[in-house]
């Protein structure tokens, strides 16, 4: 049985791995193929800083909160494994800052040591009067994606550098299931007006004295439109741009200045930091993640598509929960195929 995965970002690779882990023993000759126009280090997942943190509110979407929790617990379980360094996985603590009191987030009991900031701590951040402190995880795409790729290659999964233009292109010829993990480009495969770019830009600097993440929030401007500083294993990422509907992946000088000035105001020592890289990317934003099955016609055959896209700015945060859910959908597809293949026998 051939399964095509479209997309080699964190969602595509982790979904492929989940499916292979769970089903390669059960399905004879399960062949997984990953198709993508971009591979690490050129995917959206590679540009992200890699901080595990969902948005402030899940808008009642408990399913996504559960997927976030599954991901956090999965990663926490790997923290002490020898693979952690290779995966780009490590603990990090830090601050979320507000100009007014806000309700606690859906993830307060998922992260470690969640608490409000003390008045003395708030002295560090003039202009902010309320905030949280907690310990979370970093999962750096530039390490995690190669690690996932290696695991997949070890399992015999094949990779194809190809820009897929339609589901029909990869289905047929024995491909019975297509995993659509195409992120921002899902609209090219099947129009989805709910999927919009949430453009971000980041500046990567050398500032190894920064040991905490600092995420500020401006409730009027919306998520990630307020400065943030995230310490990686090599570079510190400065950001604070979220432009809904902007498809440009070119670095903007205006955004650079905004990020630089606001982050230096937040942490004056950053003025001395050396700039190493600048990057813009498009968060595949959607009111909710599209994680569902769809049957599509391919000639006179039928193929099953499992959609798994629209993870906005929380792909790394939610990836494992979604990959497991995609694997469950795959399992139900298998079950249906089996039931059709073996007609019910006589009742005993």
């Amino acid at each position, binding site marked *: 049985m051939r399964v095509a995965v479209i997309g080699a970002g964190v969602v595509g690779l982790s979904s492929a791995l989940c499916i292979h882990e769970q089903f390669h023993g059960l399905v004879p000759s399960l062949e997984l193929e990953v198709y993508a126009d971009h591979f690490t280090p050129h995917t959206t997942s590679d540009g992200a800083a890699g901080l595990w943190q969902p948005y402030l509110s899940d808008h009642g979407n408990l399913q996504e909160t559960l997927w976030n929790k599954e991901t956090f617990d999965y990663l926490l379980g790997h*923290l002490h494994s020898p693979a952690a360094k290779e995966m780009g996985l490590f603990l*990090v*603590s830090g601050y979320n800052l507000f100009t007014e009191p806000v309700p606690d987030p859906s993830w307060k009991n998922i992260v470690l040591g969640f608490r409000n900031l003390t008045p003395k*701590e708030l002295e560090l951040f003039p202009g902010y009067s309320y905030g949280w402190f907690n310990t979370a995880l970093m999962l750096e795409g530039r390490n995690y994606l190669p690690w996932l790729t290696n695991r997949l290659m070890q399992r015999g999964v094949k990779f194809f550098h190809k820009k897929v233009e339609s589901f029909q292109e990869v289905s047929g010829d024995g491909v019975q299931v297509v995993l659509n993990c195409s992120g921002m480009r899902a609209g090219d495969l099947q129009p989805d007006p709910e999927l919009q770019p949430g453009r971000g830009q980041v500046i990567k600097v050398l500032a190894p*004295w920064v040991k*905490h993440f600092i995420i500020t929030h401006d409730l009027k401007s919306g998520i990630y439109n307020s400065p943030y500083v995230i310490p990686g294993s090599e570079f510190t990422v400065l950001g604070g741009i979220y432009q809904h509907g902007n498809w440009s992946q070119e670095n903007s000088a205006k955004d650079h200045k905004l990020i630089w000035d606001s982050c230096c105001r937040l942490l*004056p*020592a950053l003025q001395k930091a050396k700039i190493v890289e600048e990057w813009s990317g498009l968060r595949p934003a959607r009111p909710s993640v599209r994680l569902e099955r769809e049957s599509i016609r391919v000639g006179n055959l039928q193929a099953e598509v499992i959609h798994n896209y629209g993870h906005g700015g929380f792909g790394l945060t939610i990836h494992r929960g979604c990959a497991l859910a995609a694997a469950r959908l795959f399992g139900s597809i298998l079950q249906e195929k089996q039931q059709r293949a073996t007609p019910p026998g006589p009742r005993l």
Partner: protein
Amino acid sequence: MASPKVAVVGAGVVGLSTALCITETCPSCSVTVLSDQFSPNTMSDVAAGMLIPHTCPGTPILRQKQWFQETFSYLFAISNSAEASEAGIHLVSGWQVFKSPPKEVLPFWSDIVLGFRVMSEAELQKFPQHRFGQAFTTLKCDCPPYLLWLEKRLRATGTQMYTRKVADLWELHSEYDIVVNCTGTGAHQLVGDKQLFPVRGQVLKVYAPWVKQFIRDGDGSTYIYPGIHRVTLGGTREKGSWSLSPDADTTRDIFDRCCSLEPSLQGAQDIQVKVGLRPARQGVRVQREVLSQGGVKLPVVHNYGHGAGGFSVHRGTANEAAQLVEECISALQGSLSRAKL
């Protein structure tokens, strides 16, 4: 006395910060730092520079707390400024974990560090051998950057610094009006203080940039302190040992103990081994003394014996020593006026 000449002997964190405090309280003083070693070769350079006080049995707790508060406030302001990275001062959060609950639930410094609280069950899962823990945020002074920054501040005030081995404080009596003794372990020999004894500490400085949090075993034996470029892994506490040579078995032991607290350290690179001697004493000696020979007097201010807690209290003791220097100057001016009558 127009421009009192003050010699500060010792260029570790205590010597340099004391010299700086003197230039601040007595701008008319001419301050000179004399030391056989300067950064990066002082004992202070070996230390991680974490602001976590050690309780000194011979000094009243309130005084230690005052010193720590002054030091913390001083460094907090620097960490929040544009100079933070040059000065090597940065905030770091982490955990102090205990195998059995500590006698003291709240250490005297718990309201000075930031966000001090007891660790949750979920947090303790990371430390299966430990049953109790405290989480907090404190400051770290990376050396050499901090010492070099202090030297830069001193030079800006016109302070001179010379490499010189002072064998006897009295040898300075003709060149200087007041001598400040910040010689740390050197005081054992220099002023014959038998109460001063070394506590040898071996540490590893490794490259492990993904370690962003400190971890310390509450018994003080094992710690992981992430600095700007390197993580300090420790350590040992060998009372009475004067040996500055690294020991290979100790290196192995420190590494193993730290890896059991933080398994990812197995991937640490470029392990450097360092040894320092903590200048331990029942109580920190911040005190005036007057040496005299043949009718000639030399006022001395002592500021040594900080043991394992030098960085934690350095600015507080430096302030106090500078006050004592002021007293010495007043006393000298008093006797000068009397001489004139």
